[in-house]
């Protein structure tokens, strides 16, 4: 554990190395990236195992910045949450590095892609290891840049440019919330360190309002990063990036950073009922809101994007309902099955020569004999079908929400689960079953570099749930909260009927999708033709983007134009005044320069007289 700081440095090395030499290596760059992230993965696993065996966390720090007598430190910490996250991040990153070798094959800027992946992985691992809020914020911004660069990877596309810009700015709005929250906390506690903040919270040295205020400000940061309502619109647009990026950044790791942040500062949140309620409500609302948009999208990646937003909402809901373990557990299972789904979607897109519209697909089950079943496994996991990983983690969340007494939010979560099962199977049936709805060209299964990472994730999407089940024991939960009472219990007991309801709801969603898109015994437009307005609103994502364009963007421009008005009249006016006075002085001065000796002489004597007079009156120096 003492050497855990090495873990982020491997990908950093990859970034620097590929920036310098990538041009010469061309596609050989992939090996550098893959090997270095493999090193990170190996170290991460070792650290996780060590942490499991060790009785306590490890923390090392050094002074980073001195301000007068204040000392801000930097360092790293290995606790249960960090150690788990390290493995998730480095594993998914390693798999995506491998996958990209096939997916990005033939791209001009292949090495740049790997360099950016290295930068992102470095920042994400650094974020996870941070022992204090300041360092978290630093890496928080750096993962944002990694995401920005990769969304805008196809820089020549105007959509990619717009999406990259939007992602950066919208997450920055959230980041400012985090920044304010953390500075306010600093002046309360005198430190950015997590443990000192928690100690201050526990000792009651921070007022209740201040805890609520700072917790909500920190949560705003998480809302931006995790694409929660109302800052969610950047995440679906981020699908302009290459698909492996969507899997790594916009599904498994970075967008989960918001959830991670709330989990890492959980004792702060737990001290404020209002803050917890805010987290739970935003989470539940986002879960059902995004799931409903997912019902009507036709781009394969956008469906998955809205599903990510919705699942992140689930995790927030869990945390806000005091279900620390449930939230972190779902974060882990989601990382695996969503990465799998994105990589499988990437495999489909790759096979179809960059077609993404599901209306044009169909009948790919036979043509993609590996991708199809793997995609199905991911779909079953996310839909919460029993025995798959998503089933266990979603069940934990529902129990936590029920046990916390948020019955209304519980109902929302159950409906969202129904939507999820429906739109995921709609996606599956439309892509893999039936007949192709447009000429697809020569469709071939992807190369092994792409399918192997998917197989690994496919296995994990099934088995990852068994580390924390009500049947075989809640190992993960017990370990996560070990030695820290503020995090709550490792397992929350809930009524057995919740599990049955969850199963029934997800099966109902699947069945409905089956009727509509496979058997076609129920017309596809059965609902849309009956409620055209609702359909149009949902299909247009509730017109949120349009609303922002008309309000925020317009307001910003108006302010700017108003200031330009001030600039033109007031500031330039001042300039003219100054210039006018100076030239007036100059002109009147030049009038005296008329060449008449008498005038000069008179001026000189007058001046002398005045000076003598002043001297006589004041008797010396003017004071």
């Amino acid at each position, binding site marked *: 554990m003492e050497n855990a700081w090495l873990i982020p440095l491997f990908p950093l090395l990859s970034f620097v190395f590929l920036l310098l030499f990538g041009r010469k290596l061309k596609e050989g760059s992939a090996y550098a990236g893959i090997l270095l992230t493999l090193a990170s993965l190996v170290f991460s696993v070792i650290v996780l195992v060590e942490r499991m065996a060790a009785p306590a966390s490890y923390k090392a720090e050094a002074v980073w910045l001195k*301000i007068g007598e204040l000392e801000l430190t930097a360092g790293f910490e290995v606790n249960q949450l960090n150690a788990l996250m390290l493995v998730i991040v480095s594993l998914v990153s390693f798999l995506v590095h491998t996958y990209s070798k096939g997916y990005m094959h033939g791209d001009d800027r292949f090495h740049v892609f790997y360099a950016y992946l290295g930068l992102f992985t470095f920042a994400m691992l650094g974020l996870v290891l941070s022992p204090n809020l300041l360092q978290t914020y630093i*890496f928080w911004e750096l993962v944002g840049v990694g995401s920005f660069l990769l969304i805008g990877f196809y820089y020549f596309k105007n959509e990619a440019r717009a999406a*990259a*810009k939007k992602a950066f*700015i919208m997450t920055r*709005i959230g980041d*400012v919330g985090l920044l304010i929250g953390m500075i306010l906390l600093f002046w309360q506690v005198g430190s950015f360190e997590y443990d000192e903040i928690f100690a201050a919270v526990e000792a009651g040295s921070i007022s209740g309002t201040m805890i609520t205020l700072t917790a909500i400000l920190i949560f705003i940061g998480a809302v931006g990063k995790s694409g929660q309502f109302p800052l969610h619109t950047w995440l679906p647009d981020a699908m302009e990036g290459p698909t492996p990026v969507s899997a790594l950044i916009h599904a498994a790791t970075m967008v989960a950073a918001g959830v991670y942040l709330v989990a890492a500062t959980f004792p702060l949140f737990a001290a404020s009922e209002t803050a917890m309620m805010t987290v739970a409500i935003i989470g539940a609302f986002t879960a059902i809101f995004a799931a409903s948009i997912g019902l009507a999208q036709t781009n394969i990646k956008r469906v998955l994007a809205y599903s990510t937003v919705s699942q992140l909402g689930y995790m927030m809901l869990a945390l806000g309902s005091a279900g620390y373990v449930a939230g972190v557990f779902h974060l882990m299972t989601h990382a695996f099955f969503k990465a799998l789904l994105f990589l499988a979607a990437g495999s489909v897109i790759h096979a179809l020569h960059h077609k993404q519209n599901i209306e044009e697909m169909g009948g790919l089950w036979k043509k993609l004999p590996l991708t199809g079943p793997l995609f199905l496994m991911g779909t079953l996991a996310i839909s919460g079908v029993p025995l798959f990983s998503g089933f266990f983690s979603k069940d934990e969340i529902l129990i936590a929400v029920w046990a916390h007494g948020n019955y209304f939010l519980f109902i929302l979560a159950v409906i969202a689960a129904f939507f999820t099962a429906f739109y995921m199977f709609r996606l599956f049936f439309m892509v893999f079953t039936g007949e192709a709805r447009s000429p697809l060209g020569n469709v071939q299964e992807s190369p092994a570099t792409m399918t192997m990472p998917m197989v690994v994730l496919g296995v994990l999407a099934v088995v990852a749930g068994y580390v924390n089940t009500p049947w075989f024991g809640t190992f993960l939960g017990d370990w996560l909260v070990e030695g820290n009472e503020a995090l709550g219990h490792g397992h929350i007991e809930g009524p057995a009927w919740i599990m049955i309801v969850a199963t029934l709801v997800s099966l109902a969603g699947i069945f409905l999708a089956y009727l509509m898109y496979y058997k076609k015994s129920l017309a596809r437009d059965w609902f849309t033709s009956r409620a055209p307005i609702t359909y149009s609103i949902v299909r247009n994502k509730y017109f949120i983007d349009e609303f922002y364009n008309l309000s925020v963007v317009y307001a910003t421009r108006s302010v700017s134009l108003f200031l330009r008005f001030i600039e033109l009249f007031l500031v330039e006016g*001042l300039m003219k005044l100054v210039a006018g006075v100076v030239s007036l002085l100059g002109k009147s001065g030049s009038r005296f320069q008329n060449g008449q000796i008498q005038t000069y002489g008179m001026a000189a004597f007058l001046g002398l007289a005045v000076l003598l007079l002043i001297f006589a009156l004041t008797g010396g120096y003017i004071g």
Partner: protein
Amino acid sequence: MNSIYLSLLVLSPLLGIVLLAFMPKTGEKGIKLVGVLATLPATVLALLAYFSYQGGKDLADYGEKVRWMQFGSFGQLDPNLFTVYYELGLDGFSLLMVVLTAVLASLAALASFHIKREWKGYFMLFLLLEIGMLGVFTAQNLILFFLFFEITLIPMFFLIGKWGYFNKEKAAYSFLVYNGLGSAVLLIVIMVLFAKTGTSNIEALKVFLNTEGAQLPTPVSDSVKMGLLIALLIAFGVKLPIFPLHSWMLRVHVEAPPSIVMLHSGVLLKIGAYGLIRFGMGIFPEQFAELAVLIAVLGVVNLLYGAFLAFIQTDFKMVLAYSSISHMGIVLIGLGANNEAGIQGAIFQVVSHGLISALLFFLVSVLYERVHTTNINNLGGLAKGMPLTAGFLLAGAMASLGLPGMSGFVSEFMAFLGLFREMPILAAVGCIGIIMTAVYLLRAVLAITYGRSDRQYAGISDLRSFEWAPVLVLIGLIVLIGVYPAVLSQPLESIVLGLGG
């Protein structure tokens, strides 16, 4: 105590001026070479001073003091009264400024390779400007400071007026008028102080004006002090610039040759901040504390005003000009906080913005050299033809918008950390500026580098030979400060400690 190290450092560019005077006007290569080489001694000496300070050398050893002139007949009473010395010296803050100036001057001299005509006159003025700037930061009394301050004005006037773009004359005159008026106000302050206290030495003034019952030729009342501080605020507010005294600076940014803007934005604007900290805060600490709220408000106004206007500019140079106004707002925010974190943030911002704006303007000059426009509506897709330039431009923009790991973040963070302690609501309003900075910079930079590339830029050349040095040195320093801020904070320790409320 009397070494001539600093005199050598400050006056070393003179050697180049003399050498250039004897060179033929047409020898382009020779002139450029001498021009660049003449900036190196100062850089070497400045870096040497920095590293020997890190090695434990006392900065007081660099002081030098020679009697220069005396007014009146007070020699019998007190040989120091109304006496002006030629005195140079260094402390942590001025050391950083000298290093910044010397390094930027060398890089700007390299950037001057893009100058197309009359190299001889250009480099002679350039070197004179460097002497002025180095002198400003080492002068130990107000009269000497003023002298060097004026030395910077004249070469700047000609450099803008002769080697600039289309509206160069107008820009040069508005530069002269505004700065001339600022100097006039500054001169009044200096003369009043000198007349009332009999000294212009900064340290002596600090002691005299802030000790109860100090022996002064004429006592200075608190209201006079306040008046003098406000006058200083105006004098240096023109330089910084503070809204609404900024319009001259926009013209200079747009019309002056980019190599000169590197120095102008990188160093000359910082004289305003230097003056406010050294004289305003140093000599009048109590009055400064009373004005702190006003200064913080001015800072937030600068920050937001610059950011919102940068958002609608179509000329990239204008975007950067307004961005400078906005970033100088952060200096004011830090000073307005008037506590250790804020002041250290302000000083960090002075250095950091110097490096970042020099980098961005250097890239502007690289860009203009090739595409002959800086209008962002006419540009696009440059990442295709010039991937390296585009990459560095993006890196510069990231540094400017305060990306952690680069110098801009550390300074912005500390300035806001300081202000949040004193005036949280105002600071929260200021945070809108953090968002807007990202908005306008990405808008401008992505419009230039991303998007579809025009065919007319096919076959354009990327960074070449001498253009590498400034880019790498500047990026290197920006990242170094961002990752290991002790390079700046360590020399500042003794200065910041105990400052402010």
